[in-house]
């Protein structure tokens, strides 16, 4: 009985915390729309066709790399992850790495395995190999809702990410929120502004004619507003990735997405 009451109190507290968080959201969960909603029907069809989606080339390459031996210990990802599916893993990133206490994204996690367990060189951000492995792992969470945690050590990163999201920057003096919270669904010349969600990344962008990471996409926005770009893997980008994941919580993963 006492235990049940304690559980009830815990549930009530969690609910209260959930309500507080829900109130902080500029876009309520019921109104969340993936970037694919704002595409033309042709690109949406391309994304949904596994045989035509160009991003699937990287997923297939990632699948091959998963079993490729590397590093001084001649191990492959598959050497350790034998019978375990990676389904659901991508949905929980970015997250705190228990060993280092640092916030890491999926790319970082893959590199931590390479340097820590395989004694292999880390893969460069935006390298074909890292994009392929990231896309392969993320693809296994297809359709699963983003479920990042922002409690504990992640909280400070979340707060920093929220501040970064709302910071006006660049010669155009715009924050992420100015477009993706306040103006989504409206037209910037002929392009409809999306809600700016991360659930399709790595994604194949027609503008790039290749697949790219979420950080590359963030940098494209920064370049558009004539703001400074930080190096790939910068703490500010990771914090921002966490905030983006939180505001997209519940949206299903679509990797590899196809985007304009």
């Amino acid at each position, binding site marked *: 009985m006492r235990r049940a009451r304690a559980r009830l109190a815990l549930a009530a507290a969690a609910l209260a915390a959930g309500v507080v968080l829900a109130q902080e959201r500029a876009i309520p969960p019921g109104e969340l729309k993936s970037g694919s909603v704002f595409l033309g029907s042709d690109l949406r069809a391309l994304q949904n066709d596994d045989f035509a989606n160009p991003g699937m080339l990287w997923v297939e390459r990632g699948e091959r790399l998963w079993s490729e031996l590397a590093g001084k210990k001649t191990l492959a990802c598959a050497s350790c992850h034998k019978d375990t599916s990676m389904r659901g893993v991508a949905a929980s990133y970015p997250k705190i790495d228990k060993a280092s206490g640092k916030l890491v994204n999926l790319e970082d996690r893959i590199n931590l395995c390479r340097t820590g367990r395989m004694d292999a060189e880390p893969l460069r951000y935006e390298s074909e190999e890292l994009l392929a492995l990231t896309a392969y792992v993320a693809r296994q969470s297809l359709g699963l809702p983003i479920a990042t945690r922002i409690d504990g050590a992640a909280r400070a990163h979340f707060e920093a990410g929220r501040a970064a999201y709302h910071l006006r920057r660049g010669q155009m003096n715009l924050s992420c929120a100015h477009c993706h919270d306040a103006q989504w669904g409206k037209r910037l010349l*002929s392009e409809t502004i999306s809600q700016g969600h991360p659930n399709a990344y790595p994604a194949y962008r027609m503008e790039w004619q290749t697949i790219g990471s979420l950080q590359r996409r963030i940098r494209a926005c920064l370049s558009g507003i004539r703001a400074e770009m930080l190096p790939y893997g910068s703490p500010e980008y990771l914090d921002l990735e966490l905030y983006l994941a939180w505001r997209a919580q519940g949206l299903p993963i679509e990797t590899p997405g196809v985007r304009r």
Partner: protein
Amino acid sequence: MTRKHAVAPAIAILLAYSQVWAQGESVRFEAVGDAIPRALTSEPGNAARGRSIVVNRDGGACTLCHAVPGEKNFGNIAPTLAGVGARLSPAQLRLRVADSTRVNPDTPMPAYYRTEGLNQVAAAFRGKPLLSAQQVEDVVAWLATLKEAQ
């Protein structure tokens, strides 16, 4: 003359030049209420040039957000510019082009004539306003002609 003495005049000349340069680049205006009554340049604004700045992607690129009379492609983020010359005086238009955040702190409209108080501006654009003083005057001159709300 020792080396030390040769350096001093060189620094003085450099300093003088940098002051001139800084003056050329200085971006200033005096707002009164919700307007800038005084023109930013002695040369009056040229409405024809202003129109091309408004619709040009390399200029103000105003059509990204505003409907503009005579243009077929435009965004729908901001109000139409049709009739803006009847709704606002040239002095009011000048402040809204120069720094719209003075009128509405939350506006998504970039401040076209401002270099201070901006964060993380890319190196290539640092210290430079989006439009020159003359360009602001040209744009204001054309906007002031848009009297009819279509």
